[in-house]
């Protein structure tokens, strides 16, 4: 650890300037935008934009869908990757093939994969064919609320690997002797899972949880590819609203919606950090 403060500047300065210019300054400067009316005089209107946007039907639809998609995607990503990594951890070292194939989708360009994805979920496509062979009815996957299924699955397909890798590393770092000692002391499977496995992986689990939410909030890419700029109602996200307002040059509405969104995101992560702190203290 270096203590001379001046030495850090050459390392920090280039990045710092860029972050200030392209991330921090826009974030702060945009607040002014959300408080003015966007006319030629650009008059100060206080919180008028906020109440207007908040009552806008499309905004409400976008917010509702973004929240619903996030709370479907993030928890299922977290649970699935946890279960898969538990399985993978139990069969080590035999899981090499799975381990390397589960991460590949994270690097694949979405739009290249999308053609196959849409073929799979076509009305006459393989997914419906399997359902039919198992005795079910065909589903119109590419319309209405059902369209969420391919979108969520594409999201899971893409993000699963990253989370599995983080979980697996944490599970493998737990020394086996801990379990042996606990077994000698008479601790059963559940007691071991909660007294050893869980506390040992809290930092990694929390990272996976945060990343699940970060990526779920950004689900726009998949939505845009599958549904376009104006997707069916069940898929119209907040990002669609902001992008469409942007293309109509209504900057006030974009920034206002952005800050409402950012407020919600920060509040949620604040809560998560708070809960994690308490959980860790409770376990110690």
């Amino acid at each position, binding site marked *: *650890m*270096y*203590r001379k403060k001046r*030495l*850090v500047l050459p*390392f*920090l300065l280039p*990045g*710092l300037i*860029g*972050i200030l210019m392209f991330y*921090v*300054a*826009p*974030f702060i*400067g*945009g607040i002014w935008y959300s408080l003015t009316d966007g006319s030629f005089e650009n008059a100060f209107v206080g919180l008028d934009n906020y109440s207007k946007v908040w009552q806008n039907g499309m905004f409400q639809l976008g917010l509702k869908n973004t929240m619903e998609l996030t709370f479907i995607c993030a928890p299922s990503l977290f649970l699935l990757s946890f279960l*898969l990594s538990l*399985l993978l951890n*139990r*069969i080590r070292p*035999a899981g090499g093939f*799975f381990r*390397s*194939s589960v*991460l590949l*989708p994270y*690097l*694949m*360009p*979405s*739009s*290249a*994969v999308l*053609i*196959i*994805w*849409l*073929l799979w979920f*076509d*009305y*006459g*496509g*393989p997914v419906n*064919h399997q359902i039919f062979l198992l005795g079910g009815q065909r589903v119109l996957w590419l319309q209405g609320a059902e369209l969420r299924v391919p979108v969520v699955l594409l999201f899971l397909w893409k993000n699963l690997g*990253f989370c599995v*890798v983080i979980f697996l590393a944490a599970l493998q770092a737990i020394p086996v002797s801990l379990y042996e000692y606990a077994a000698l002391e008479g601790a059963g499977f559940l007691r071991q899972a909660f007294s050893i496995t869980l506390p040992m992986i809290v930092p990694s689990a929390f990272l996976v949880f*945060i990343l699940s939410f970060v990526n779920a909030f*950004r689900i*726009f*890419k998949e939505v845009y*590819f599958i549904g376009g700029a104006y997707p069916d109602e069940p898929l119209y996200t907040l*990002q669609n609203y*902001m*992008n469409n307002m*942007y*293309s109509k040059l209504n900057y006030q509405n974009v920034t206002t919606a*952005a800050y409402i969104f*950012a407020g919600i*995101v920060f509040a949620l992560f604040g809560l998560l950090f708070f809960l994690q702190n308490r959980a860790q203290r409770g376990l110690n």
Partner: protein
Amino acid sequence: MREMKGFRLRVIQTFLGLLAIILLLPMVQTFLYSFSSMSEMQAFMKTRGSYDETRWMEAHLIPNRVSLLQYHQILIADNTVLRLFLNSAMYAAMILSGQALIIPAMAFGLSKFRFPGRNALFFIIILLMLLPFQVTMVPNVLTLRSAGLLDTVWAVVIPMWFAPFYIFLIRQFMVGLPGELIEAAEMDGAGTFSTFLRVVLPVCRPILGAAAALSFAESWNLVEQPLTYLTTRTDLQPLSTMFNQLATENTGFEFAGATLYILPALFIYLFFQEDILSGIALTELK
């Protein structure tokens, strides 16, 4: 945990094996379809969206006759895909070289120096990492426009140089490096800069490889940035935003196009696989 043997082990293995095959199937299928003739693919793609209850799409994986016509089309006869491909490659190269100069240095500054405001700065970087692109979109457009960069390549490239996620990723790794490493270099009379170059960076090889591969994947898959910053310049759009049209226009060469699009990402993955696995594996939220 006890390792399993026998029947239960085999059940889990089969299950995970099947899952892995499903996960890889989209790429395999794209690759196989790319060797069908264009007319065969056009006919096949036309069967999409039919609501005839009695028919299924013919799910043939192996082409009737192996043909390289799709590749001839995209590589020689028509340069649309190739031009978009080169655009994408240009963005990836420009973004990664800028990041290489800025991000590791910043992560080093944030992890191995003690200065006032360090934790606050890192906290801000985490907050920025959580924000979706659209939140800072409009002010960014205004900044870029007043700098004369809007509707140029730089509008897409420069903001990516400071992507908070990679600063976070590399910083988390560097925090875990033992202090003795730097003390030993100091004893030998190395300055901060040569310590950074000769001691710290080589040790960080896994996370640098992982970050490079992940950042390549992101640059190869840019959507929001070109759509907002390059509204008037379709000639500068990368493959990621334009590729969809190929499929909807039913051109017949979309699968060769998709294969060409997937290949660089696949090579990057195979090349950096161990780095990615070990680099990500060591990341925790501390």
